[in-house]
């Protein structure tokens, strides 16, 4: 397939690539990130901010040890959600609802902690495993609902997953302003502080290390599911072509629901990593949009689990940089959100270069002698 465009400088032809070689994919992604930095630099200059100082701070978020640990912490919920999205997107299930699944994951783990604290249920040792289980389950269910509607009634999952985000966020608001508010908290909308044994401290007593381990295990699980399990094979087939999937005898609805459950579950654990890792309690708006950042991360990493880990740490670093910029240079945090968005835009544009080859034919190219 090829398309010709006539320009005053000659003919430009756009040809579909037979295959997209890996080095092209990597190059375009790096180029996208680079261009995004450049675009942000231009904007910073335009609004009169010393961009070299700002960029020094951004770089420090990746090099200074204490900032680095914070970057990794912030990367955990992003990473777990993005791993789930990687599975969902491979299935052609456009889950925009990782944010909501994160929130219900927080509800589940906080709920378990509160049951323990208020009613003395569960032993200290089973508390954390139980929190993992319930946040996975509730996150999964939150994603299963749209999947069920899609599988059985062909309801567009983009809308349903997105709308469920607001439901989940408001649910947290209600709980934290109402029944779950810390009785000794002077009326602030906060839950009680989690006890240490309900926190993610089991590796070197630090959330960052524990979280990194979780991210790596999560990536390994996603890799095993996608590349070595029957379900992963079915997910890929369903994502590529529903008709062929049916033809080959795959139970399409079942696969969509299973895949979505796993995807939502991973985001649910992302929610857990916020309340029992980053914050140590539940509060409203506990996630500053990790679930949306995860969409960008999944796309940036080309849905590859290992690259998702790297990309999340990169984005965790950017978030940390945002905090630092605000604290030390009084630059609004939103600059970082803008940068994220610009990176995403450039990645999307880069897709064109991955799929198509652009050939400049010049004015007389291909003519007869």
């Amino acid at each position, binding site marked *: 397939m090829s398309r010709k465009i006539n320009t005053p400088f000659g003919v430009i032809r756009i040809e579909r690539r037979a295959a997209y070689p890996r080095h092209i994919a990597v190059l375009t992604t790096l180029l996208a990130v680079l261009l995004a930095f450049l675009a942000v630099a231009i904007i910073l200059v335009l609004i009169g901010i010393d961009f070299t100082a700002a960029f020094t701070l951004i770089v420090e978020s990746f090099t200074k040890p204490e900032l680095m640990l914070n970057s990794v912490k912030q990367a955990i919920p992003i990473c777990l959600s993005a791993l789930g999205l990687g599975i969902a997107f491979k299935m052609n299930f456009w889950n925009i609802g990782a944010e909501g699944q994160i929130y219900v994951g927080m509800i589940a783990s906080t709920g378990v902690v509160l049951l323990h604290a208020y009613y003395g249920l569960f032993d200290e040792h089973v508390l954390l495993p139980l929190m993992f289980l319930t946040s996975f389950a509730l996150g999964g269910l939150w994603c299963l609902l749209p999947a069920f509607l899609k599988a059985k009634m062909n309801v567009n999952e983009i809308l349903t997953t997105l709308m469920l985000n607001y439901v989940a966020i408001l649910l947290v608001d209600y709980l934290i302003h109402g029944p779950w508010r810390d009785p000794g908290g002077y009326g602030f909308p906060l839950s009680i502080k989690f006890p240490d044994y309900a926190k993610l401290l089991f590796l070197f007593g630090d959330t960052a290390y524990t979280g990194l381990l979780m991210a790596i295990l999560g990536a390994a699980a996603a890799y095993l599911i996608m590349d070595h399990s*029957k379900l992963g094979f079915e997910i890929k*087939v369903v994502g*590529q072509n529903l008709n*062929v999937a049916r*033809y080959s005898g*795959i*139970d399409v609805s079942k696969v969509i629901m299973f895949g979505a459950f796993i995807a939502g579950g991973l985001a649910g654990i992302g929610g857990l990593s916020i309340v029992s890792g980053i914050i140590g309690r539940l509060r409203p708006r506990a996630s500053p949009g990790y679930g949306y950042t995860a969409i960008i991360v999944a796309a940036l990493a080309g849905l590859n689990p290992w690259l998702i880990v790297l990309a999340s740490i990169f984005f965790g670093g950017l978030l940390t940089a945002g905090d630092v910029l605000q604290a030390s240079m009084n630059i609004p945090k939103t600059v970082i959100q803008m940068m994220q968005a610009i990176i995403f835009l450039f990645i999307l544009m880069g897709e064109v270069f991955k799929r198509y080859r652009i050939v400049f034919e010049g004015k007389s190219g291909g*003519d007869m002698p």
Partner: protein
Amino acid sequence: MDELVGLRGIVKRFPGVVANDHVDFTLRRGEVHALLGENGAGKTTLMNILYGLYKPDEGGIYIKGKRVKLKSPRDAIELGIGMVHQNFRLIEGHTVLENIVLGARDLEFVIDSKRRGEEIRRIAENYGWKIDPEMKIWQLSAGEKQQVELLKILYRGADILILDEPTSVLTPQETRELFRALRRMASEGKGIIFITHKLNEVFEVSDRVTVMRKGRVVVTEKTTETTQEQLANYMVGRPVVFRPEIAEAVSGEEVARVIDLEALSDKGIPALRKVNLTIRSGEIVGIAGVSGNGQVELAEVMAGLRKATGGRVIIAGVDVTNKDPRKIIELGVAYIPPESIKWGIIPDMRIVDNLFLKAYRYHPYSNKLILNWRKIFEDSERLVRDFEVITPNIFNKARSLSGGNIQRLILARELSGIIGGGIPKLIVAAYPTKGLDVGATEFVHKTLLKYKKLGSGILFISEDLEEIMMLSDRIAVMLEGRITGILHRGETNIERLGLLMSKAVAEKR
């Protein structure tokens, strides 16, 4: 003799291949010149060069004796060249007239449909076509659409006509009509290039024939001075078996039976109206008919991919009406879907994945959860070898395969016995040779006959009557969702089949 087109020493290279390698080709006034070759031989590339779609890397194009440069199809059209592509380029919602005058240079602001309609009618009548210029394109049959495509060209006054595999969408009757019209055009001094890979058509319509293979012209000859066998040798580069040895049907046990089967088409109108049919093991039952008369729907209902609205499907003694495809697969039904690129493979997955699209879930290729890739890779290598799929390696995307190799891949997946072991009880093959070149077609025929011998029952749907008559033990003719007749080997001939098929075509008008 008057030369309309002269292509001299045309070379066209694409990354990695030479599509045309110093090709010489001439078209004379008043002749039908068949351009014969397998898929990928370079016929279409050559014609695209003549039509201005590609620029040749070397060589010259001469039109009516003058050397020309074609920058785009517009230049070609101006020189009197017209092309009918394989897939029609018509606007479905517009009328015949609107489609035809669309490209006219002298179009007035408000179309003078009376005058132009009259002109169109006059041209059509000259070739024996009954076409109403006010009809909408979607109301027309495939044959009529093709006539509109030709009218579009003729209306512009073209005298060099290129037809790319024009008969692939036509019934035998429509084909004959087309050939008559082409002969008439030739007698009026036009030149016609007729691209095909069907040998019999070369002899029915052409004056000269040029055979291409692997980008080169093998031979150009007068049609009367050659034979089918000779041309086939030129095309394939080796002798071709024309009449494969056919084992007598041993009427074995019944493997499939459909009873009063009813189903709807995608548009929701009845596509099957009480179809009854049985297939025995070791027998090939051919389904003949113009496509769109319920053949695909029948195949899909049998494979569990389409809901039956009435009647029953019984396979190997089990009632599988409206059971899911997986259950039917597990009973030993192999299904070769129509338009295999669209329905039969996933182009962006690897060849291995496509080979194991069904078998991945069975022992020994997986346990409850995990795939056994090592075993899958091992057996893929074997399947690729056994079914002669030509590919540098099994990890390439299926998209990289040619049409013939894709069909070989599908045959390997469906027939090789990797699904549950053993040969399939029933093979439902829907248009398995459509669009394939001679070599691949021969392979499909050989394979089906081999499995017939091994005891599979085969439902064989095709539009190619010769092929159906050659392979089938019984032929059922389908027409508007009904089986209008079942003929046994020996009592069939083209005329009789054509009659059963075309009665409806006549009634439809």
